[in-house]
């Protein structure tokens, strides 16, 4: 096991990793930008190093700064959290080259799953269902037209190197495809450095269902249950739950098995997430997130498995400590991302938290690095806290979550809580009549 882990991140996920390390008896090193000097992750780590000014590119995203910090503190492993350098294969390579362990997958896996086309190829090879479409780059318009006729409209025209909702266009028919093909490729070239585009069936009202997975170096691959993250605003998840509600037993079993199969067939090591779109009784591979995810706590709550400790153990070369049979899902968990933003206009709302009271009691978990007097920095992402509840069933979890949100006091900044309270009380959420574009459509009708 590692002796000392440097955490190349900030905020709640840095604190989450510190807690996991402490329970494993590992010393921790926090890194921080000048703006984060007084942050909680700095206070609670065993050691800390200032790595640069407030701008992320010069601190948390700076490979030399992070690696030097690990060097001078003699850390033997680096945990990247999520965001920042978590999926950067060059960073993972540099960590390894400096004789330290990157707590995450290998650089090769980061590259494989970082590219949409090679990720789809791996999924296809493992027998996972893909959305009808080109499955690889389409060379020219005529090939695109042929593929499109076979896959059927509507389709998404996507830049292979795009992501986060950028570099894609909906084409409803052949006329639109002919009109947009060249311009999308040209834009992709300009924006992402690669003009490769591919075609994929557009689902009108899909649910986002993902599977928590884990693999070790000995070929053991398991899933740790599913999650539903369909409640997204502009592709940003804001409410997540486990297990995904209202899936038939057979559909759920097929999805879980597919995810575990992909881990097994690619030899993926540590924890990750396999994302799918689900519509009706069909599911389609979307992508792999080769890291710990923001929403991992809901899976922890329903399985009792500490995923960050598992991730660290697997990175240290340990054998998978649990078998698939031992992963048992009990009860229901829901997470709300409390963001520092205007709940209706979604503009960021950084600033000092002048009043703070977090909810508590049975079945209530708060993962947060803030407190009264804390500064929500304008330089980084707006996640202030994750509020997670656990209850015997989904209805009880929703009631508990609404109560906990009523208790949550965050003053001095605006937060997303008012929006989330309305959404949780919405009949469509309660009755599981939602899909990935539900919130955006719902907001338009308000």
């Amino acid at each position: 096991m590692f002796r000392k882990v440097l955490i190349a991140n900030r905020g709640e996920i840095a604190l989450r990793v510190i807690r996991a390390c402490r329970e494993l008896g590992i010393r921790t090193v926090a890194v921080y930008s000048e703006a984060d000097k007084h942050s909680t992750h700095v206070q609670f780590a065993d050691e800390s190093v200032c790595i640069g000014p407030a701008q992320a590119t010069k601190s948390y995203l700076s490979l030399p700064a992070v690696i030097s910090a690990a060097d001078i503190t003699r850390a033997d492993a680096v945990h990247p959290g999520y965001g920042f350098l978590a999926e950067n294969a060059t960073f993972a390579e540099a960590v390894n080259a400096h004789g330290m362990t990157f707590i995450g997958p290998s650089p090769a896996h980061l590259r494989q799953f970082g590219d949409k086309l090679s990720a789809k190829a791996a999924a296809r090879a493992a027998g996972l269902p893909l959305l009808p479409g080109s499955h690889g780059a389409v060379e020219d318009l005529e090939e695109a037209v042929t593929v499109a006729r076979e896959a059927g409209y509507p389709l998404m025209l996507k830049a292979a190197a795009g992501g986060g909702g950028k570099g894609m266009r909906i084409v409803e028919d052949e006329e639109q495809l002919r009109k947009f093909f060249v311009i999308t490729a040209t834009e992709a070239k300009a924006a992402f450095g690669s003009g490769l585009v591919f075609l994929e069936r557009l689902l009108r009202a899909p649910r986002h269902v993902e599977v928590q997975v884990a693999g070790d170096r000995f070929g053991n691959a398991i899933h740790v249950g599913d999650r539903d993250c369909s409640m997204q605003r502009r592709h940003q998840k804001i409410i997540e739950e486990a297990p995904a509600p209202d899936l038939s037993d057979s559909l759920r079993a097929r999805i879980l098995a597919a995810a575990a199969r992909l881990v097994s067939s690619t030899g993926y090591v540590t924890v990750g997430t396999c994302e799918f779109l689900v519509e009706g009784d069909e599911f389609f591979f979307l992508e792999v997130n080769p890291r710990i995810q923001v929403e991992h706590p809901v899976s922890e709550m329903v399985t009792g498995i500490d995923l960050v400790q598992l991730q660290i153990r697997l990175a240290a070369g340990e054998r998978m400590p649990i078998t698939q049979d031992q992963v048992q899902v009990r009860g229901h968990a829901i997470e709300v991302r409390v963001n520092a933003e205007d709940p209706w206009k979604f503009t960021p709302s950084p600033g000092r938290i002048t009043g703070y009271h977090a909810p508590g009691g049975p079945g209530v978990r708060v993962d947060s690095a803030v407190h009264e007097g804390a500064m929500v920095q304008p330089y980084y992402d707006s996640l202030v806290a994750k509020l997670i509840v656990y209850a015997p069933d989904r209805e009880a979890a929703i009631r508990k979550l609404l109560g906990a949100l009523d208790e949550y006091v965050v003053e001095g900044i605006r937060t997303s809580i008012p929006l989330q309270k309305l959404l949780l009380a919405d009949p469509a959420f309660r009755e599981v009549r939602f899909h990935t574009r539900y919130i955006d459509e719902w907001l338009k009708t308000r």
Partner: protein
Amino acid sequence: MDAKKIDELLKLMQRRGVAEFTFEHEGTVLAVKFAGASAPVTYAPVAAPVAAPAPAAAAPAAPAARAGGVVIKAPIVGTFYRAAAPEAPVYVNVGDKVRKGQVVCIVEAMKLMNQIESDVEGTVVEVLIENGSPVQFGQELFRLGPA
């Protein structure tokens, strides 16, 4: 210093996220701690940080007034060396004059030896870091007196 000027100053400090400040001007002294500012600074670290905390000055790697002099700060994280190689002479000693742009030390980061140039002029009064020690971003390396 009238109420209006004080209010202006307070607003400015708040806008810039200042928690505490001291202002001295022509014999008037104003020291302020904003509400809610005390929590973070009074947090007791679980263990002492490996190295001295980085200074609070806003401009990294820039000279800061301290004890009547200016300082040269580390512009990057890494390991501090006073010479280019173990047997080489140190770049600067106490008493040496330093020009702007003159190399004063090495900070090793990712196996690269980064020559650190002074961006101020003066005479070296004190070397604040041991040779071979780790330095954080913004950490003070040399104190300089008047040239």
